[in-house]
């Protein structure tokens, strides 16, 4: 199409970004009868929403995220009815391993802190663990099980949210990057995707993930957003032996076994290749292989068949931005999920839909306001990055 006249669309809400956050916001809005246009630069769910580890975990999140996580937990429970697929979502339990007494104490502390949220956390001693999980390597001294946490296939879930939104009447434009956005100073945004498409809407949701900083900055709200690239790895299919999704207190590695038998492992970082692609670091691959065999000796004779990475947005405190713009009425931000957005994504979508339609939400989100970056001028030259472009490691 070489037409120089762009297709113009008027809508209630325009969403920038078709990851799990933007797509679930689109779906929630359509379920409330609100007109939606969504612009996605590539394919919906093809970036970090679609290539992440697939953990659907509440355990270990900061307390401030637990109301969102609980709301999401309830959405995940009715996933097939909502998006038409279970996306291989299973409440297999998420087990966090302690490799020392200090780690065990930290897990006990978290279980205590989060008790008001009723996550159903169960602490498991080393002895019981060895009896129950003979496949676990010797390093585990115990751990913490959140039995209703689980895992899902992000490759399937995230695009399915977009498809469901589309079926519900959202107008979704893939391969349509936002090239320019203007606000008339009163009540209308105009979004341009090249010369092909022009969308005007009174409300815009900034769900552009690692690429969300540019829009925030344009509207006078610069954010210290940086890109991160998780290193991921998958083995060939192995006889099924491990139900839980595993994490390790203190980080380093996480892994799960999918029903097909492959183990998905993550940990360490990748590097940025170009605007579209990222890969796992050599050192992360090496570290993952060592830790994997240590954690799960059964993997000793397995092969890994693929590594990959993606691009995620991180704020310095590893908390997302989820708030109304303070400079521009109608602009609402939802980005920066720091590698932990998959589980809460569907709830974030609902919250964004509420903010767009009603101006407020019943879920506490004060912790995710941009106001937290309103620090008084630092006495010394700060090391806070302000760039919004992806950085190679």
């Amino acid at each position: 199409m070489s037409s120089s006249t762009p297709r113009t669309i008027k809508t209630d809400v325009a969403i920038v970004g078709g990851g799990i956050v933007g797509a679930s916001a689109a779906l929630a809005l359509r379920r409330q009868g609100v007109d939606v246009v969504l612009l996605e630069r590539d394919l919906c769910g093809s970036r970090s929403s679609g290539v992440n580890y697939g953990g659907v975990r509440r355990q270990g999140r900061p307390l401030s995220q637990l109301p969102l996580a609980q709301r999401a937990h309830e959405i995940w429970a009715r996933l097939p009815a909502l998006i038409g697929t279970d996306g291989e979502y299973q409440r297999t339990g998420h087990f966090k391993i302690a490799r020392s007494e200090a780690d065990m104490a930290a897990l006990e502390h978290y279980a205590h802190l989060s008790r008001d949220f009723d996550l159903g956390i169960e602490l498991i001693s080393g002895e019981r663990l060895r009896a129950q999980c003979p496949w676990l390597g010797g390093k585990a001294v115990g751990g913490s099980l959140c039995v209703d946490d689980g895992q899902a296939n992000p490759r399937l879930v995230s695009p399915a949210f977009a498809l469901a939104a589309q079926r519900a009447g959202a107008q979704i434009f893939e391969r349509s990057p936002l090239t320019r956005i203007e606000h008339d100073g009163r009540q209308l945004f105009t979004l341009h995707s090249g010369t092909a498409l022009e969308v005007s809407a009174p409300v815009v949701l900034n769900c552009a993930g690692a690429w969300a900083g540019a829009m925030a900055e344009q509207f006078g709200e610069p954010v210290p957003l940086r890109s991160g690239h998780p290193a991921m790895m998958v083995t060939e299919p192995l006889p099924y032996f491990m139900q839980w999704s595993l994490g390790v207190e203190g980080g380093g590695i996480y892994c799960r076994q999918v029903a097909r038998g492959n183990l998905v492992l993550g940990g360490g970082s990748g590097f940025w290749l170009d605007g579209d692609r990222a890969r796992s670091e050599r050192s992360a691959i090496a570290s993952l292989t060592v830790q994997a065999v240590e954690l799960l000796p059964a993997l000793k004779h397995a092969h890994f068949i693929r590594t990959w990475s993606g691009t995620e947005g991180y704020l310095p405190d590893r908390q997302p931005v989820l708030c109304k713009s303070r400079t521009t009425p109608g602009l609402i931000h939802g980005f920066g999920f720091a590698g932990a957005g998959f589980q809460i994504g569907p709830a974030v979508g609902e919250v964004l839909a509420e903010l767009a339609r009603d101006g407020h939400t019943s879920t506490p989100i004060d912790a995710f306001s941009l106001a937290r970056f309103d620090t008084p001028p630092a006495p010394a030259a700060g090391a806070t990055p302000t760039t919004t472009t992806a950085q190679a490691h």
Partner: protein
Amino acid sequence: MTTKPALQPVIVGAGPAGIRAAQTLAAHGVRPVLIDEAARGGGQIYRRPPAHFKRTPATLYGTEAARATALHGTLDGLHAQIDYQPDSLVWNAQGGLLDVLHGPTQTTRTVPYGQLIVASGATDRVLPVPGWTLPGVYTLGGAQVALKFQGCAIGSRVVLMGTGPLLYLVAYQYAKAGAMVAAVLDTARFADQLAAVPAMLTQPAVFAKGVYYVGWLRAHGVPIHSGIRPVRVLGDGRVAGVVWADGAGREHTLSCDAVGFGYALRSETQLADLLGCRFAWAPMHRAHLPERDAAGRSSVRGVYLAGDGAGILGADAAEWAGELAALALLQDHGTAVDAARMQALQGQLHRLMRFRQGLERAFPFPTDWAAHAPDALVVCRCENITAGDLRACVRETGADEMNRLKALTRVGMGRCQGRSCGVAAAEILAQATGQPVERVGRLRGQAPIKPVPIHLQARQATDAGASA
């Protein structure tokens, strides 16, 4: 004061391209590292049997014995001048280092490079037929390897089908080796071959060999059927026969105990991909291939491409391209090279293009394959994904691109990572979406290039010291 960085060329692949590249560098006083996945150099076409194998080059390589022997001799004579690393799989590349898995010891090491010649070769281009997962079905290349490397035939009554020069070569080699070739079934029509004659005559010697194989097969009573379409491989637990349709659509059944099939070759491009080379659609090869200039320079400075890994041109072209890439590398580094020789090699390669187009005319890709692939046909055998699964995904999700199709269906997500099933999956996707195949894109490359043991024993030293 600036000192020119030392030349540190690494060549990946010890087939015709890699060996000639190593020889050329050595002749200019440069000591390259030559990394090869195989235990003994020669590549696939001149694959060498294990050391104590008894068969002579004449029986192993037939009319190509002299070339094979010459190439092997070149490599053997180079041992003192190069750092030759056999049994070594390059499985990753990042930041001027290659990750290399040494098969026998299961250790991995990094090999630094300043300049790199990628001569990664090719594998069979597979278009599945119902029944192709039965034991006793091999690719043409696999059938040839069995004969050359293991000294055995894939069966005692063998059908060879598909298309491409390898079809007739393997048939000839099998028949010569004493196997009963029940039939050669070529999807190309005889008229295609006739139409290609003028272009094929640009390489009269090669053309003559092809004619000779066909003549020999006919003279020895091997039935050759052209313009066919494979319908299915028969068998219950193992191959018992094949069904094929002739040009008029009539089905024929033929009993056999093994099938070799294939549709020419496809380039192994993953290393070039990991290195960041820019790819473009190459219509003649019906594939996305790394871009290169006439001398083999890729889009990435210091990375050169030679041989079938950058586009299928055959063994002779690979030797020329290997030499040429090495000369280009030396030239880029400021070493005086024989410019006339470079010109001559480029001329030879250029002239071969006409012949290569002739081959494509003689053995055209069966573009109607996807249209005839039934829904129940297994396309991806690692993950057991059928043509119907792929079509359903297109129907239900609107997937129109290879990586999306992979994400949603698991096609190409198994041990082969699309190396075997990618060609067929792309054809199905193109047909199901009504797009030309170049539009469906290509699978993203990611390490490892082939499956690697997770229990990696890292060998600390890089090979910089080892080669000093």
